[in-house]
């Protein structure tokens, strides 16, 4: 099956601090050579700590930011340049849901008007707004409310309704549940899954929470300091993660079983400054298995099982 979205060798750097008179401003690669693809109707989960480039990646994929290098093909064609008419038309097919639902809505407008606006921009019937709001489980009476009159979970439903009203093929969800209470998180995650089952759209689901991603994703990509360190089907992450970083992430997920408290979870400390990534394997300063080679030579993604890739020199030895 051909991919709905295929990104190859994406790279995006940002300036840190101001340029001096004789000194160009320092730059760091927020996303440093990422390759991924998403098939129609599939969910790709992207996991990583804050600062690993997840949000930059989601902006690049949507064409909201321009990549410095690399190529993005959506449905076989390159993304149009940002803010052109073609690019705006493309918004019907790819939409964004991000973490801060309260901020993502205009405080001055009732929520129904905000869903209608998305439809009007693309010359669709605004009457579909009511349908979109009921699809995400909001009672009709709420349509007239203003954002400040609604709870975080309700607001995230509105944001999802606004994105889905246009019937996109791809929805990029950037930390869609991180700002919500755990009980509400479960509701929204289930809503997201149900919507996919009903409509067959593809998700790029970005989160720092491995447990959530494992719950929704068909495949998972683990990012570390701008690079993908492991990628494979979700089932593979249940049975045997390959990369030491992925294992640390998985070990850190709390187990809801009182009999199983306080296992020996390796503590790997905070990530290094993404503006000055370590040479060689970027994970080596925090890796319990690091050897001399890891400090010198950056590992490449290698396939270890069917469609299961990881970037580590020592997987054969430590597995």
């Amino acid at each position, binding site marked *: 099956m051909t991919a709905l979205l295929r990104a190859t060798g994406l790279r995006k750097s940002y300036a840190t601090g101001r340029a001096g008179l004789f000194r160009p401003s320092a730059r760091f690669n927020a996303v440093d050579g990422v390759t991924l693809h998403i098939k129609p109707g599939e969910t790709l989960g992207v996991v990583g700590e804050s600062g690993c480039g997840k949000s930059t990646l989601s902006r690049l994929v949507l064409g909201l930011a321009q990549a410095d290098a690399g190529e993005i093909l959506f449905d076989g064609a390159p993304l149009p340049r940002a803010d052109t008419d073609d690019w705006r038309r*493309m918004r019907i097919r790819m939409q*964004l849901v991000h973490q801060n639902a309260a901020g993502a809505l205009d405080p001055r407008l009732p929520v129904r008007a905000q869903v209608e*606006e998305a439809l009007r921009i693309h010359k669709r019937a605004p009457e579909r707004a009511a349908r979109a709001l009921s699809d995400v489980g909001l009672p009709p009476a709420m349509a007239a409310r203003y954002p400040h009159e609604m709870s975080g979970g309700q607001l995230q439903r509105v944001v999802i309704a606004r994105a889905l009203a246009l019937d996109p093929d791809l929805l990029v969800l950037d930390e869609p549940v991180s700002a919500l209470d755990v009980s509400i998180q479960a509701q929204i995650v289930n809503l997201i899954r149900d919507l996919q089952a009903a409509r067959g759209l593809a998700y790029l689901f970005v989160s720092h929470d491995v447990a959530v991603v494992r719950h929704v994703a068909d495949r998972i990509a683990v990012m570390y300091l701008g690079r993908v360190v492991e990628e494979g089907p979700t089932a593979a992450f249940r049975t045997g993660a390959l990369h030491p970083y992925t294992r640390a992430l998985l070990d850190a997920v709390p187990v809801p079983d009182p009999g199983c408290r306080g296992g020996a979870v390796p503590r790997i400390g905070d990530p290094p400054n993404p503006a000055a990534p370590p040479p060689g394997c970027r994970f080596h300063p925090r890796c319990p298995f690091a050897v001399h080679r890891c400090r010198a030579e950056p590992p490449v993604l290698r396939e270890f099982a069917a469609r299961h890739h990881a970037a580590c020199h020592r997987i054969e030895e430590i597995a």
Partner: protein
Amino acid sequence: MRWFAIKSLRAFVTLWLVVTFVFFVLRLSGDPTMILLPDDTDAATRSFYRALWGLDRPIWDQYLRYVAGLMQGDFGISFRNNMDAFQLVRDRVPKTALLGWTALSIALVLGIPLGILAALYRDSWIDRVVMGLAVFGFSMPNFFLGILLILIFSLQLRWLPSSGSDTWWHLIMPAFTLGTGFAAQIARYTRSSMIDVLAKPYMRTARSTGAGPARRVISHALPNAAVPVVTILGFQIGQLLGWAVVTETVFAWPGIGRLLTTAVATRDLAVVQCIMILLAITMIAANMFVDFLYGWLDPRVRVGAGARTA
């Protein structure tokens, strides 16, 4: 309705405080007969006029009579020409209102688009030029700008009349003189408020939904950025009369500002008081208007719509 009743009551109390304060301060500032009558007036004539104007009564008595008069719409008599003070002021209102509204319109029409432009092209040459003009416009004293305009457009180019108010041509220079400072203020506030709003996540939402730049600015950024600008507008309507005094003097514009300067200089108490009351009413009305606009612009401060959270 309840909101309106409370506001009105407050406005009434404010007005009463202003009346009282102005009344006593003016009467503490000296004997009007010393200024109004010639220096060689004898004591008998002076006391005749004092009795005529009621200045010989105890100050409390004067105050109560004045307030009682106000209740019946009597603002007192001008000492200078024996005319009804209210009549004198009312005759001048249209001219100042015309000048003030024109100046305010110029300020809005120039200030808001320039502020938006500066915000959209932040840190570019457009931003620098606009902000440079704003600093210039705001820091230039009115009388100086007025005289400068007269020098250029009346004396050198001979395009515009330097004084009077007979035609629309007469309005141009005073209105620009008065409007420039306000336009500069509005441009600055519009710019900073727009910059805040442009960075808000909902602006990114609008863009990623496919909204074009015009739609993003007009239907999302501007209404949200308007609240601080409206606040400034309220202050400006209040300041307008104060600044109009200078402008009207420079261009010999026969408005309230000039009436006020002469009335103060000659201790024409009834006229000064009448103008002060008018000023206070303008301020109060401007503030109420601003409060009303807040509610219209921002649903979060709308009255009646109690905070419902589920």
